[in-house]
């Protein structure tokens, strides 16, 4: 079956702009995760959804970052007033409810100029 998909694959924006990153999880997966990966580092947790609700948003770095999952499937990560330090690969993962294995998408490469 289809894996996790993310759009766009690449995004270039200017400092101060607003961006939205989209994630389509594996069909039937109720848990969805967002991570951020900087060059040469492992992924860093941002937020976890179980169904429509954010079960853990402890990794969001500040209030410029927000994520939604209104129908319990597709999720959007929103970044306001982007800063150059937000440049990174944003990864989405999904898992079956109660299952620990997380399956990752290809990521969105965000570059803030």
């Amino acid at each position, binding site marked *: 079956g289809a894996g*996790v998909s993310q759009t766009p694959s690449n995004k270039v924006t200017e400092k101060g702009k607003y961006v939205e990153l989209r994630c389509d999880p594996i069909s039937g997966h109720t*848990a969805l*995760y967002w*991570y951020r990966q900087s060059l*040469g*580092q*492992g*992924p*860093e*947790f941002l937020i*976890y959804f179980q169904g429509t609700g954010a*079960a*853990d948003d*402890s*990794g969001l770095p500040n209030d410029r970052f927000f994520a939604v999952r209104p129908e319990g499937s597709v999720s959007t990560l929103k970044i306001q007033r982007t800063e150059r330090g937000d440049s990174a690969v944003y*990864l989405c*993962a999904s*898992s079956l409810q109660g299952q*620990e*294995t*997380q*399956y*990752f*998408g*290809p*990521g969105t490469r965000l570059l803030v100029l």
Partner: protein
Amino acid sequence: EDQVTQSPEALRLQEGESSSLNCSYTVSGLRGLFWYRQDPGKGPEFLFTLYSAGEEKEKERLKATLTKKESFLHITAPKPEDSATYLCAVQDLVRGGNKLVFGAGTILRVKS
């Protein structure tokens, strides 16, 4: 705070030269330890989950083992296509919820 340290940072092997990658971890209680493979420009690809000390899992040329403090990823007779970054991650049973805490990875290059 949960911590994962991987070593070495980079490893160069000749084709057929077996070796091991190390993942040392600190958690309140281990829910699971995960190994992923990541190719350049792609997302992490799941390899193994280990749950308790003494557990071992194998897949082709890869074998993962687990102790109470560390995990090893053994690569037997590697091929150039095994070249990738190998990531280790843990889930904390006590305070981590479902999130994964990753190490920085080991970059493996296998030359023919």
